[in-house]
């Protein structure tokens, strides 16, 4: 669902992009492809008016292309080089003429790679876009809004949009990017490519051997939105048959090799991206996990890690349910809290059922009235009451019979004495015993647990 939306947002009219184009194609034939990209991207990227629109769109186009990891024609990438190494701000008007010399210098390292301009802003945006994949859809939208509004920000202030969200660990190295470090830019782009490159990984590729075994995990990246158009599902299947990639696989493997060579500043957080996200898409056959840098790579430990991540994710969900456990970290303490909470809830059910039982005898339940009154009860009070009770008794752990049994027995004892009481008197008694503390369940619970006999005797 997220993927589809992202897809429609970003690529409203994605054309069938030829995938087997070599880089060596002359530049003249690429303009038409670029126009297609421009149309697609104009909806998202509000290109600054200052520069020539073509080149700005081209920049945006190249961001996307970089993000897609060469999904589209790499030849198309080589054509527009509006940013030479001297241009820093994105809104500077780039020369419409292509700076092929600059291209070739950068490409010399990676003859088979798509060319990514030495533009730190582009790299930043590429990383941002790539980070969309692992974040929630809301974050994606936020970043989209971010990007569209901050395209003009020169590199100096790149830190602010990048780090303001605090959710892009792999972008933290952005400020280090200088204009005259194209390899670093390429490297960061490599990082962004990794996520979708992993999808196309063949089991026997050399890239896998370097990075670790490919126990793969579902990667709900935004790139998947694009990949799906190219039959990405088939790529994720166990067969690994990359029908949609075909000719791109070789290039992507080279990308992977290149990324490894260039990957000096990649943090381990970079690998976390695909692990953090919990895929909300329809379930695939199995789960892909990528071994992080510097960690064990055998399948057992990878599976173990997947399992641990799942458990930690569930624990986080439980943390939201159980009150007063935000500061508790660690599985053992959290489990303690959970156990206590469940026990306290069960005790509350018992206690309330006892209350209802005493109130119940002569009361007839008119369901409609009760339901309407029940629903319109102050909803906010009750959870807080539960919370306050629990907060006051966080460490009460029962190892024996619950304290409810004590009041039960004491209930039965004095009652023979008060059989003469009528219904109203009984209710008043109950109210005396319980009613005055109905708003202060905490104190009442204390009383119930500690001095149940007193309540009865003072009848």
């Amino acid at each position: 669902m997220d993927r589809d939306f992202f897809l429609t947002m970003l690529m409203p009219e994605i054309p069938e992009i030829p995938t087997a184009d070599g880089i060596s194609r002359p530049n003249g034939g690429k303009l038409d492809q670029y126009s297609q990209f421009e149309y697609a991207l104009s909806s998202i990227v509000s290109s600054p008016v200052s520069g020539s629109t073509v080149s700005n769109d081209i920049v945006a186009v190249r961001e996307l292309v970089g993000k897609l990891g060469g999904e589209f024609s790499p030849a198309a990438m080589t054509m527009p080089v509006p940013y030479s190494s001297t241009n820093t701000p994105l809104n500077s008007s780039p020369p419409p003429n292509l700076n092929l010399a600059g291209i070739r210098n950068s490409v010399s390292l990676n003859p088979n790679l798509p060319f990514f301009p030495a533009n730190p802003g582009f790299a930043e945006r590429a990383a941002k876009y790539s980070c969309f994949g692992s974040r929630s859809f809301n974050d994606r939208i936020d970043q989209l809004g971010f990007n569209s509004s901050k395209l003009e920000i020169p590199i100096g202030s790149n830190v602010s949009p990048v780090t303001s969200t605090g959710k892009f660990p792999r972008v933290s190295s952005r400020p280090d990017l200088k204009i005259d470090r194209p390899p670093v830019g390429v490297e960061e782009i490599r990082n962004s490519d990794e996520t979708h490159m992993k999808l196309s990984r063949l089991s026997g590729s050399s890239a896998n051997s370097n990075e670790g075994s490919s126990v793969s995990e579902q990667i709900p990246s935004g790139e998947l939105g694009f990949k799906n158009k190219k039959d990405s599902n088939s790529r994720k299947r166990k067969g690994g048959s990359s029908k949609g990639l075909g000719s791109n696989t070789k290039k992507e493997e080279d990308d992977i090799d290149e990324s490894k060579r260039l990957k000096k500043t990649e943090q381990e957080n970079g690998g976390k991206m695909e692990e953090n996200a919990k895929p909300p898409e329809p379930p695939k056959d199995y789960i892909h996990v990528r071994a992080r840098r510097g960690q064990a790579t055998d399948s057992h430990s990878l599976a173990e890690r997947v399992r641990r991540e799942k458990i930690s994710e569930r624990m986080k969900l439980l943390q939201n349910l159980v009150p007063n456990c935000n500061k508790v970290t660690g599985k053992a303490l959290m489990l303690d809290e959970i156990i206590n909470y469940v026990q306290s809830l069960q005790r509350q059910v018992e206690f309330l059922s006892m209350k209802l039982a005493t109130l119940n005898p002569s009361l007839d339940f008119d369901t409609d009235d009760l339901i309407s009154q029940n629903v319109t009860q102050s909803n906010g009070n009750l959870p807080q009451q539960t919370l306050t009770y629990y907060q006051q008794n966080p460490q009460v752990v029962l190892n024996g019979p619950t304290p409810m049994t004590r009041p039960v027995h004491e209930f039965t004892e004095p009652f023979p004495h008060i059989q003469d009481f009528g219904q109203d008197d009984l209710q008043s008694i109950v109210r005396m015993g319980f009613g005055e503390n109905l708003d202060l369940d905490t104190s009442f619970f204390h009383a119930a647990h500690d001095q149940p006999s007193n309540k009865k005797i003072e009848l």
Partner: protein
Amino acid sequence: MSPPQQPSSTNPNSLKIRLTHRFLHNLNNLNKKRSNLDNTQIHQRYNRVKLAAYASMAHVVGSRRAWSRAILWKIRNRKVSTRHKRVDHKPTNHHHARSIKRRTTNHSNPKREYVDPNGNSGQEVKLRKLVPGVETMDACGLLDETADYIKCLATQVEVMRNLVDLFSTI
């Protein structure tokens, strides 16, 4: 913590409303079945109300969850067993399901970190005893079921508290 004031699976109010309906329905049945106005039978009524509470909880959730299935299964078994034993009229049957949980607490290792032969920590074992129906589940599923169980329990407590407030002011 953001207050989950109306915790439910689909609607904001659906779980609570359904629980209320079901619980009142069960209580009404309780009243009609055996009108125990004897005050000595308070304990019995208490147990039946508690059973009605859990039954309503389980019925509302249905068979989607392991814990609800376990509760429904237990109730069904209890009904069958009580029907068979109705001749004897043993009131202790009502204690059956709940009291078993109390008897099997771990007295030998109350505080020490206890690890099962399976590798479960003592806490997991405790949790398995608390939440019905998770005896044979892995840790992942256990946490899932626990989360759902907590959610429903909290809602049930809320409903019951509402009822008590209502009745106490009548």
